[in-house]
């Protein structure tokens, strides 16, 4: 077995029927607990391209276009894994679509309030995460975060709460993937101004803390063992202490806007992808004596002539990952070197 296991190499490319659009976090991967096969999804304009372990590639369209309205654009898609079930969630300019994990059945549709004539402020849903064992949270362009209560089976999904702490369009939402320390919260929401909100989930969500943004968009966020890892439009990755809101690390990681972050919970590996064509793998850890957060660079991958828009680990240890890029009709898969 490779010593430090920090090297990766390109393994294969999976053909998509359509190219991927330039949208934040534009790759979702379903990793069953057993070994592969896995399923992948990437958004192309008004449809979601799905690649399953078997059968031909499929497409799910955005919903909600009436005869007078144009076909709405999708903004994001993500598999949400809850203890009782897995749902595939799509967000668009019109609302939120939830399907069974294989995309076969529509379970729930939530329509956003879309004005009759387009206003200067765009309306869309964006930012998807499973939260607190039985909720799915979805962000919106108004800054509101919708909390949906998901029954263990069936279609009786209800809107349980609307969280209104963000004043700018929500970009990403992430749930705690490890063990949250005391009072650190188990959900983080991010927006266009770079503001991060920390929440504790439950019957009623409680706001535990707010890290004000400085105007630089936070496009992608992860939460692990009380550490928030956030990717920004100026190419920086910042690590924040979820409990105190203290900045613990700042990395000049990319030369362009970061589009995707992902975290491997078993090892604390962090994956970042940006418009600069680079994908980086980092290792997060905590010094047990000083309690300082550590981040070290493990691996760099240059996807030639491609602006990366999606990057996900394909296993919980972070030994494999997949990448999508704007105008690229493939999903690039990387494995241990």
């Amino acid at each position, binding site marked *: 077995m490779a010593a430090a296991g920090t090297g990766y190499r390109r393994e294969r490319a999976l053909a*998509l*029927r359509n*190219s991927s*659009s*330039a*949208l934040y976090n534009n790759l979702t991967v379903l990793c069953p607990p057993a070994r592969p096969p896995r399923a992948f999804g990437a958004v*192309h*304009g008004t449809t979601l391209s799905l690649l399953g372990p078997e059968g031909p590639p499929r497409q799910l369209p955005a919903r909600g*276009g009436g*005869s*007078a309205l*144009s*076909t709405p654009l999708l903004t994001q898609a993500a598999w949400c894994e809850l203890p009782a079930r897995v749902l595939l969630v799509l967000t668009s300019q019109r609302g939120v679509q939830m399907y069974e994990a294989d995309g076969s059945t529509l379970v729930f549709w939530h329509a956003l309030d879309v004005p009759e*004539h*387009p*206003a*200067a*402020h*765009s309306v*869309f849903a964006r930012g998807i995460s499973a939260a607190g064992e039985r909720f799915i949270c979805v962000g919106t362009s108004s800054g509101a975060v919708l909390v949906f209560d998901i029954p263990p089976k069936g279609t009786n999904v209800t809107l349980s709460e609307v969280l209104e702490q963000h004043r*700018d369009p929500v970009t990403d939402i992430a749930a705690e993937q490890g063990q949250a320390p005391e009072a650190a919260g188990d959900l983080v929401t991010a*927006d*266009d*101004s770079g503001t991060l909100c920390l929440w504790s989930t439950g019957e009623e969500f409680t706001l535990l803390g707010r890290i004000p943004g400085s*105007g*630089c*968009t936070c496009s992608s966020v992860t939460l692990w063992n009380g550490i928030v890892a956030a990717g920004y*439009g*100026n*190419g*920086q990755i910042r690590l924040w*202490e979820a409990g*105190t809101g*203290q*900045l*613990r*690390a*700042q*990395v*000049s*990681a990319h*030369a*362009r*806007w970061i589009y995707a972050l992902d975290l491997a919970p078993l090892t604390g590996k962090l994956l970042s992808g940006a418009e*600069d*064509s*680079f994908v*980086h793998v980092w290792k997060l850890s905590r010094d047990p004596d*000083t*309690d*300082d957060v550590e*981040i*070290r*660079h493990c691996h*760099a991958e*240059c996807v*030639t*002539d*491609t602006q990366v828009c999606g990057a996900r680990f394909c296993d919980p240890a972070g030994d494999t990952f997949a990448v999508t890029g704007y*105008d690229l009709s493939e999903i690039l898969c990387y494995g241990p070197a």
Partner: protein
Amino acid sequence: MSARTLPLLFLNLGGEMLYILDQRLRAQSIPGEKARKDEWTDVDRKRVMNDIISTMFNRKFMEELFKPQELYSKKALRTVYDRLAHASIMRLNQASMDKLYDLMTMAFKYQVLLCPRPRDILLVTFNHLDAIKDFIYESPAILNQVDETFRQLIETYSCLPDGEFQLIRQTLLIFFQDMHIRVSIFLKDKVQNSNGRFVLPISGPVPWGTEVPGLIRIFNHKGVEVKRTEFTTAGNYVTPQREGSFELYGDRVLKLGTNMYSVSRPVETHVAGSSKNLASRAKENTVPNPLAKEELNFLARLLGGLDIQKPAGGETGFRLNLFTTDEEEEHAAQTRPEDLSYKVINIEATQEPGRRAELSRILGELEVAEPRPGSAEKGEDLLALMDGL
């Protein structure tokens, strides 16, 4: 997605169109005293540029353009440029118009893709406008119109946050998705690969506000920096010198959006017909277009504001060829791949009340209560109807 995208799309594509037309007109122009009746002169060139620019920056047209609205299809937008290109004595055949539109769209796609920051799309727009002002500096009235639009751009876009600019950029990139037409000048300059994809450099200045990658800073729980480490990658970046100006006048610093054509660098395109990605390319022409009616409304509103001058009696249009010879143009028309045809809508949406009434009547007739089952090609039928006008 962003309802503020259209003005930027329109003005930048228009700017590229003017660069190309100017270059072709210069290449084909003959000194005044030697010109035959059917050949271009310098005076003709200036007149064409003046006519098109004053039509483009028409106040009523700009008012419509700046209203918040979603982007329409490439088909609908192409119709507007068709009308614009014919706003003077100049005439273009279908093949030349196709080539013109290919060049315009690939050039702006390149500029959007390579913009260091999403906000820099505004600088690209200002570069185009600066050059347009140069074309018509001798006409104070038109210059005024352009300055008005400049001011409106500054007013509308200057205060937008970066996140909103990125949304605009993402909307533009969706519009340009899957376009990989090879442009000779790009291939020669090595900014485009032979497969039609643009070269994205991993060296040079980082965007204003971004740091050169490499530094990791660690802070303790009190916020005091306790450690610095570095990492290296294949990229070779440097700090930028200064930021471009977003004022009415100023050094934009960014070169994207400036005129890359000159008389010695002719404009060529290769229209990539078959490629292994054919299946994955969005086939816009075969997908049913439920938007057709709304697009027609948009066009009627937009084009209704255009004050197109018909050539006076006795004056025939001068034909401009975007290819080197007539035979080449003919050949291009015959060999253009089906999936790249723009299927232009021919609407006579002019100021004439009679014509406008007719358009309204036609639009009224298109009011279908219920979509008929199996009428997947309804959108296509409507467009074919309009073609027959």
